């Protein structure tokens, strides 16, 4: 314990000396860590962050739902469901490969370009891009969970007269979701920062608000402020993820 504290102090001091002793430190300090700029733009950035939080909740809920539905569709057996399976597989393959930035551009600028009646605004389109991209990742996580449930569990459920749907709903999915809860939460942590990419489409979120501040004063401090806020926002979720992961590991050890 004492050794750990000591070595941490030494490493910390070395880092601090290394950075503050650098030749360009004074310039960096004024352009990245200017307290006046931080105070000036904090309200705007916080207002923007509120948008990020709302986006995060909506995107996480819908991406999880989409992922779950797609994962279940991919498990359907029988020739009748081939088109459904093929579509679901094609979706997870293509959207896991596509960079999120490109999807956001395509949705936010491509869809309005079609000039269709009732095109939603860029905020909704940007959110849709995030949901569709993350849905593909989450679908694969859910699928891994579903496939980890032994087939004998389905056999047991079906032998009791449960339909495929009921067996999925009551027997397979509850076990699958429990097993993949840690990676699901981890993807949600990644999602919480990626909702910031919506700023590329125009809506004024925390990052966009910071960017405006940076452009006005030619000072990068607002980015640091936004960055710190994002970390603070992520901490509770990261804590929950660690806790769930630990619990899952304990249960696995107890079970075997």
């Amino acid at each position, binding site marked *: 314990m004492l050794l750990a504290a000591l070595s941490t102090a030494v490493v910390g001091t070395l880092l601090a000396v290394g950075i503050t002793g650098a030749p360009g430190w004074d310039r960096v300090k004024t352009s990245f860590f200017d307290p006046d700029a931080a105070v000036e733009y904090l309200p705007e950035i916080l207002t923007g962050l509120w948008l990020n939080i709302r986006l995060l909740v909506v995107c996480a809920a819908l991406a999880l739902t989409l992922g779950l539905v797609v994962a279940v569709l991919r498990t359907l057996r029988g020739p009748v469901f081939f088109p459904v399976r093929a579509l679901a597989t094609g979706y997870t393959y293509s959207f896991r490969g596509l960079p999120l930035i490109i999807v956001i551009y395509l949705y936010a600028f491509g869809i309005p370009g079609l000039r269709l009646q009732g095109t939603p605004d860029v905020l909704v389109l940007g959110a849709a891009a995030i949901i569709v991209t993350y849905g593909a990742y989450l679908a694969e996580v859910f699928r891994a969970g579903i496939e980890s449930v032994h087939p004998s569990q389905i056999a047991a459920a079906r032998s009791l007269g*449960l339909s495929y749907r009921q067996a999925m709903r009551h027997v397979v999915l509850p076990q699958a979701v429990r097993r993949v809860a840690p990676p699901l939460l981890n993807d949600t942590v990644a999602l919480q920062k990626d909702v910031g990419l919506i700023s590329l489409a125009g809506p004024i979120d925390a990052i966009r608000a910071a960017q405006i501040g940076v452009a006005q004063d030619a000072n990068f401090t607002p980015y640091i402020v936004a960055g710190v806020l994002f970390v603070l926002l992520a901490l509770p979720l990261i804590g929950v993820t660690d806790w769930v992961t630990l619990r899952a590991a304990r249960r696995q050890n107890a079970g075997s």
Partner: protein
Amino acid sequence: MDVRKSFGDHVILDGLTLDVAEHEVVALIGASGSGKSTLLRCVNLLEEIDDGTITLDGDEITDPRANPDAVRQKIGLVFQSYNLFPHMTVLDNITLAPVRVHKRPAAEAKEQAMTWLDRVGLTAKASAYPDRLSGGQQQRVAIVRALVNNPRLLLLDEVTSALDPELVGEVLTMIRDLKGEGMTMVLATHEMGFAKQVADRVAFLDGGKVLEQGPPAQVLGDPVEARTRQFLARIIEAGRL
């Protein structure tokens, strides 16, 4: 029933014919790979048969137009590996089908489940999760789970094979009690002594067919077929008869 089943080129059940009367207990014996488990899974429609028919109470259950879920509600199946649902308590395992499939009120299903648990001496385990139970306790819960559906036929697939020897007895006692109540059962087993006690008829499966069947004393004591003799000799050698 009269069935043929193959996986690829490998024929598992080759025109096997077997009739089971009401209240009758039939024990299936035979070497591993002789088709005992496959036959039970076919009867429960967990495996599709390639040819032939299986009838229950005069209805052809293998008819492609028949609803397999409705058929399975009348046939209980208990597995070698128990297959309890690990995320549910013992009580929830038992009431799942009554509530979800048979649409019975939860309170009524619970009461029925508790009555059964009381009978098999597991009341104290009602709200425990399966991983807190011994193998014998889990298997008894699995049997209760099949019984609360009031099946016409109960299939038991080597239900004691995964158990430690000292836990086999409690499961066999339960099956013996069921026989006393007139439950129609088909059981695949390696317990020859038990087959002798509880079965009305023993059927020896070999090469995907019923090679020999008859009263336990005759099939196990004085078999007609050479293959049956060989099989039983190996069993005696292993000290299982």
